[in-house]
């Protein structure tokens, strides 16, 4: 069985995953109450304090720091995945190689920690 045939299951899974919400929303739209639009109904909290700004605020830079670190550790995972598939056939040498690799990247995490990049909201702006 070739690689692409093995992924037929994944394809079916994706298809079901896409169809399930689509069908659910469609069926729900058949069953819903009659539509009578009114501006008050479109407020974020219909029966509460009136919103005074747009919901789309400018987010803090902390989110971006986490995203940056996530991408870098993501790339690390790319190298760990083939190792995890083959470590049985190579034994201690490849394992040592990977431990050194993780150690080098752990230095980056230590640096981020030391510099306070992982701290959240140093004082409200």
């Amino acid at each position, binding site marked *: 069985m070739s*690689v692409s045939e093995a992924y037929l299951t994944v394809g079916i899974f994706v298809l079901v995953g896409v169809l399930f919400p689509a069908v659910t929303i469609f069926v729900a739209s058949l069953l819903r109450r009659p539509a009578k639009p009114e501006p008050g109904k479109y407020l974020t909290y219909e029966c509460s304090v009136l919103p005074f700004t747009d919901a789309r605020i400018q987010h803090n830079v902390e989110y971006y*720091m986490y995203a940056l670190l996530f991408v870098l550790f993501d*790339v*690390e995972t*790319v190298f760990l995945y083939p190792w995890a598939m083959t470590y049985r056939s190579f034994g201690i040498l490849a394992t040592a*190689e990977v431990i050194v690799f993780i150690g080098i990247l752990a230095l980056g995490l230590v640096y981020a920690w030391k510099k306070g990049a992982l701290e959240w909201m140093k004082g409200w702006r």
Partner: protein
Amino acid sequence: MIQELVFLVISLFVIAGAAGVVFAQRLFHAVLSLALCLLSVAAVYITLGAEFLAVIQVLVYAGGVVVLFLFAVMLTRSDLQLRREPLESFAPVSAVLFGVLVLFYIARTGFVPQGERALAPGDVASVGQVIFSPKAYALPFELVGILLLAAMVGAIYLARRDERW
């Protein structure tokens, strides 16, 4: 026959995603279209038997890079997130030039679909066998680690908030 059909369906998703990136009025929707485009490209890699490439595509591009783009959009002011002009005036010119370039190279190389068998095995286990075979790529592998470390330190330094560091 069935391979061509699968390829055509996946290509439709790639093109739909790419068109969404270009034509979406909100930047957030453009990034989500980019995710669709990148995931569909991963599916193309699967049909070519390049499993490892597809894994990288999903993990790094559809996962990490799209998250990075989304957070960058969230950092911008909300009034900048609406696109006022759908296309720059010189965009059609560059599109035509790029199309001519691609067609030129396809004509030059004699574009023939190679199919799955023409490629080396690209599943994750075979790639691991190559990378981690004794004394093969041990040094380059650790150098990649140091490169990632440098990227991490640089990213933290550039994205820092105040000047005290």
